[in-house]
């Protein structure tokens, strides 16, 4: 059985890197007694894959991983079991059954929502107009960055990969960005471009970037129809 788990990562654990989060969850599965499937072979490992790595320092309300289990309790029961052994800051939000034919989360990811805010303790290090200025910047039709690849440098326009920009609060810039294996835009790239245009030093620690959700795209060639990854699973009820 394939299971899709959504979890949040908040507080000090934002300093735990992606590989360590993976190791962390392997131990969580054992502590919680999840009947997870193991691969065959001499050193069996848990069948577990993460949708998208989260950079150190970012918080999130929308992380995903898929696992395979031999047996399972109800969603409510499993969420409780797992959260009972989770540390402060990591919390499972949903635990849903996927169809056996479902694509894994990693290959589905097409877009991600982010919120960018200035941390209270660093508000003096930046102009109070930053949210508005950054919002305006992200609205530009041409946001060029230089990408360094093996073949040399090339200029990329990020603008077409910014699907939505808004300010839900006066202190927050919301971004829906192309994500995943095709084109992966990170908020840090936009911040870097913003400060380089303004010719001000970019200090990453000033900003709290939070990932809010990950989406698949049901209409990639056309108008885009973004569906949160958890919608591909169904809650498991008792009986």
């Amino acid at each position, binding site marked *: 059985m394939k299971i899709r788990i959504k979890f949040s990562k908040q507080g000090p654990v934002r*300093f735990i890197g992606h590989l360590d989060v993976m190791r962390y969850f392997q131990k969580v599965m*054992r*502590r919680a007694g999840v009947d997870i499937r193991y691969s065959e072979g001499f050193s069996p490992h848990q069948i577990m894959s993460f949708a998208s790595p989260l950079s150190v*320092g970012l918080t999130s309300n929308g992380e995903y991983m898929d696992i395979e289990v031999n047996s399972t309790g109800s969603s409510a029961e499993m969420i409780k079991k797992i959260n009972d052994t989770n540390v*402060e800051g990591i919390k499972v939000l949903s635990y849903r059954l996927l169809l056996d034919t479902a694509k894994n989360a990693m290959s589905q990811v097409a877009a991600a929502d982010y919120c960018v805010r200035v941390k209270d*303790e660093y508000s003096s290090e930046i102009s109070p107009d930053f949210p508005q200025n950054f919002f305006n910047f992200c609205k530009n039709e041409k946001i060029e960055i230089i990408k360094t690849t093996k073949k040399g440098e090339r200029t990329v326009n990020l603008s077409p990969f910014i699907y939505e920009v808004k300010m839900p609060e006066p202190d927050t810039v919301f971004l829906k960005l192309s994500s995943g294996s095709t084109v992966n835009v990170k908020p840090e790239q936009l911040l870097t471009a913003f400060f380089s245009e303004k010719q001000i030093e970019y200090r*990453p*620690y000033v900003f709290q970037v939070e990932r809010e959700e990950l989406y698949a795209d049901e209409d990639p060639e056309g108008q885009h129809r973004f569906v949160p990854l958890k919608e591909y699973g169904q809650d498991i009820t008792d009986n």
Partner: protein
Amino acid sequence: MRKLALSDEILLNVQQPARYIGGEVNSVMKDPEKVDIRFAMCFPDVYEIGMSHLGIQILYDMFNRRDDVYCERVYSPWTDLDQIMRERKIPLFSIETQMPVRNFDFLGITLQYEMCYTNILQILDLSCIPLHSEERTWEDPIVIGGGPCTYNPEPIAPFFDLFYIGEGEVVYDELLDRYKEAKKQGKSRQEFLEAAAEIPGIYVPAFYDVNYKEDGTIASMVPVNSHAPAVIARQLVGDMTGACYPERPVVPFIRATQDRVVLEIMRGCIRGCRFCQAGMVYRPVRERSADELKRLAYAMLKNTGHEEISLSSLSSSDYTHLEEIVNFLIDEFDGKGVNVSLPSLRIDAFSLDVMSKVQDVKKSSLTFAPEAGSQRLRNVVNKGLTEEDILSGSAEAFRGGWNRVKLYFMLGLPTETVQDMEGIAELSEKVAEVYYDTVPKEERHGKVQVTASTSFFVPKPFTPFQWARMCTKEEFLERAAIVNRKMKEMLNKKSLRYNWHEADVTVLEGVLARGDRRVSAVIEEAYRNGALYDAWSEHFDNNIWMNAFETCGVNPDFYTVRERGLNEIFPWDFIDSGISKEFLKREWENAVNEVVTPNCRARCSGCGVRKYGSGVCFEGEDRQ
């Protein structure tokens, strides 16, 4: 959410910020306002090393079982953070509550190897605690040291208020109770230290005067405070099965050196290798019961979620119920997502059988520790392993599919000759030959690979070699060159590899291991000039140390290349380790005469630890 001591700016600019944030699974959270005693337990090295240490996990668990005590952890900040903390005057903090170490009642520092001594000063310095005991007040924590290096605490004596000599499980409760009482009664720091000095096993260095002879050796060491005993008795646990053991060890987020459940199957060793301090000072052998270990294995795997379990002891093959416990681990856990990692076992039919079950034979290697290249020298060091053991064990392993062998040796052992050194190459060659003789051509998976590694011998206190002369750096390197040359002459030289250890750091370790109080000035001077993380070869700077010896007028050769007289008073002679000096002298003579001493189970050699009334000394007897 917990508030962190370091800002995001700092945490995002240092390597591995997870070293400093705490919040790990099973870390203990208490309200510091609601306890009487706050204990900061420190391993003076980087987090990943410190988190791998079993002793701290045991004490952390033991202290936190008390409602009136809150024990937190402290590690050495890595060099990048160290620099930032100095520049910005950020005080060193505990992992759990992220609060300054200086506000704690105790700072306990475990002393696992000599090369961490400058890190002790780093910890004190960053905590804003005066480096010397004599400069501290009630505003500072009581600084207490424990662990193997306390068997000669003298080179670091001025930096500590107390040392705990022996196994931590025994008298800490009493020490904490006396502290509480002293605080309640408004006693002075000095009065508390006096009360502590009366507890068996607690050593208060400030209460002793050391007098030296003209030749630099010790004339006398005498207590100068009426509360301080002349001799400090090593403390040990009588019955291991009743001893507390952490069923919920802390699980780090980042990969620690030991990222697994560790079961301590026994303490002590019956073998009596003459170079081995642990084999002497942890006597007598005391085993944990197999049933207790089985229960702990379940509980600890469940509570940590670790994917690996391992056994810990000085010589696991000598554990009475080894087969039972190993078979249990394999039957219960192997193939169920938990790897069983075997400790180094004596190579025989049993160990090869279990190894083939839990390891990929093609990828794993076989390890022998002959320690010396010739039978003569193995007799000198009392290492019972024979050439026949090694060759027949190798043959059996080669038939089982292994083709990699590691051999560990020491260079610079007492009485060592060129023949002994060349014996290292010859033994390696014989192992390679066994492969080609045993495994038919068509069944070979490539060449056999024999890797010989040599470390340089450092004489340690409370071993029969405590009187021995140590080699100079040049002598060590010369000996390594002799081995290397011989290796190249061997017929199967293409199958042989040879590595040797750094010589500079070994010589320094020798000074710190058998040094006296005068060496403390050198440690402080080296620290002031930038020595830190000396156990890390990329950070060790021998020049700093050599300059410090010169500045302080201390001659390192006095502590290393001098053979000590049988009547010399050693800096550590005030400790009663349980092992009698007569036994050590006898063993020193036996070594020189190449006489082997049987292990504790074969025959009692009267080392002195029978007086503790426990362990292997009473096996098969009805204890009253």
